[in-house]
């Protein structure tokens, strides 16, 4: 009886300790398959609600969006005809010098349903999953360039890590001079091109593209443009600030690249 009275005095503390321990177990089992499955199932539930909300929002923007698409379509049609001419010319030239044709990337269109707004955990939830042959670590792109990669996959939905995520790294190179480095997020809407030795040929305005050296990203996808270069007297490397080509605030649709570079 006395024991029960003693225990009831500490009830709040015991409850607190138990819940803290459960939370710590959850943290330590982040890569657990069951937790991932549970999370993806819950994301699926959220997406049902989110889908309705998105359709509701889209309804009011349809007219404006239609006009925008029409304009874009016309521009693209013009661009396409020019590109077609260039492709034919390219093929002829490749034949002349005996170049092998690269396989085209296979893309799956995905709609962004949720975008994480935490200041340093930048993720998106998309309406594609294993049923669409999407798998973990597949690259995400839009027409402007690299968006990120698939982080977790459920049956109908998947979570993507964005380029603007603290944990994200991609092997990259300067398009003009082929200088190589690693791109990772710096702060705000900017990235850093790291591990580029001092006095390398890098200029403000240079395009940074994926190098294709990793297992995940195909080569030649635009990451962003160099906007600032500094060199500290002590370090061995340059500090190259890169502005991503993609506007992450207006991300509505993305493409999942199904084919990996090493499959080519």
């Amino acid at each position, binding site marked *: 009886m006395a024991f029960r009275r003693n225990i009831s005095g500490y009830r*709040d503390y015991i409850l607190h300790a138990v819940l803290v321990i459960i939370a710590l177990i959850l*943290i330590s089992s982040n890569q657990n398959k069951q937790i991932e499955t549970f999370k993806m199932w819950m994301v699926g539930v959220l997406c049902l609600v989110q889908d309705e909300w998105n359709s509701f929002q889209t309804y009011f923007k349809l007219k404006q969006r239609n006009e925008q698409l029409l304009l874009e379509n016309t521009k693209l049609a013009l661009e396409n005809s020019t590109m077609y001419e260039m492709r034919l010319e390219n093929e002829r030239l490749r034949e002349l010098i005996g170049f092998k044709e690269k396989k085209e990337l296979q893309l799956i269109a995905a709609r962004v349903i949720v975008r994480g*707004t935490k*200041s*340093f955990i930048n993720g998106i939830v998309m309406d594609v999953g294993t049923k669409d042959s999407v798998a973990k670590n597949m690259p995400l792109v839009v027409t402007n360039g690299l968006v990120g990669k698939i982080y977790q996959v459920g049956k109908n939905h998947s979570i993507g890590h964005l380029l603007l995520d603290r944990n994200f790294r991609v092997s990259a190179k300067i398009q003009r001079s082929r200088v190589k480095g690693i791109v990772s997020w710096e*702060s705000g809407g900017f990235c850093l091109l790291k591990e580029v030795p001092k006095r390398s040929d890098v200029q403000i305005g240079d395009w940074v593209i994926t190098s294709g050296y990793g297992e995940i990203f195909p080569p030649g996808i635009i990451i962003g443009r160099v906007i600032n270069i500094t060199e500290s007297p002590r370090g061995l490397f340059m500090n190259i600030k890169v502005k991503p080509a993609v506007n992450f605030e207006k991300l509505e649709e993305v493409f999942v690249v199904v084919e990996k570079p090493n499959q080519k």
Partner: protein
Amino acid sequence: MQLIKYFLVYILLLFIEKNLLHLISIKDVTPDLILIFVIIISLRENKSKATVIGFIAGLIQDVFATGFFGLSTLTKTIVGFWGAFFQQPKKRYNLSAYASVVSILVIVHEIIFGFIYNLGIHLGFFRLMFQFMLPRALYTLLSALIIYLIFKSMLWKTESILE
């Protein structure tokens, strides 16, 4: 009945956090509405209730977040429990007392969050603190004060004797 009310408010806040919060983000920093929710609950309810509500609120937030699973569960459980030490269910806090209590709890939350998050990314605790945690803590505190000024009579029915 009260729990249903809390749940509905929580769902509304989660919806705002996922859909509308980016509209008021400053350089990608947004206030943590769920933290404000847990703090206000802890100031109104007893320790057990506040701890359990903090735990559930954090767990649901974790499910829909793309970061470390369990991190919000841990921090919100701790804030719920320790916030209940400042519990004042009947009398309303005056603004300065409320601001002090919220500041302490928000800082505790950010320190624990930053410390554990840093174990996973090795960015450097102080850099993480000044670059991300502090701006978010300040924005959350500011939002908590605005919420207090707008909803104080709804949250605490009786005027504080200190006012």
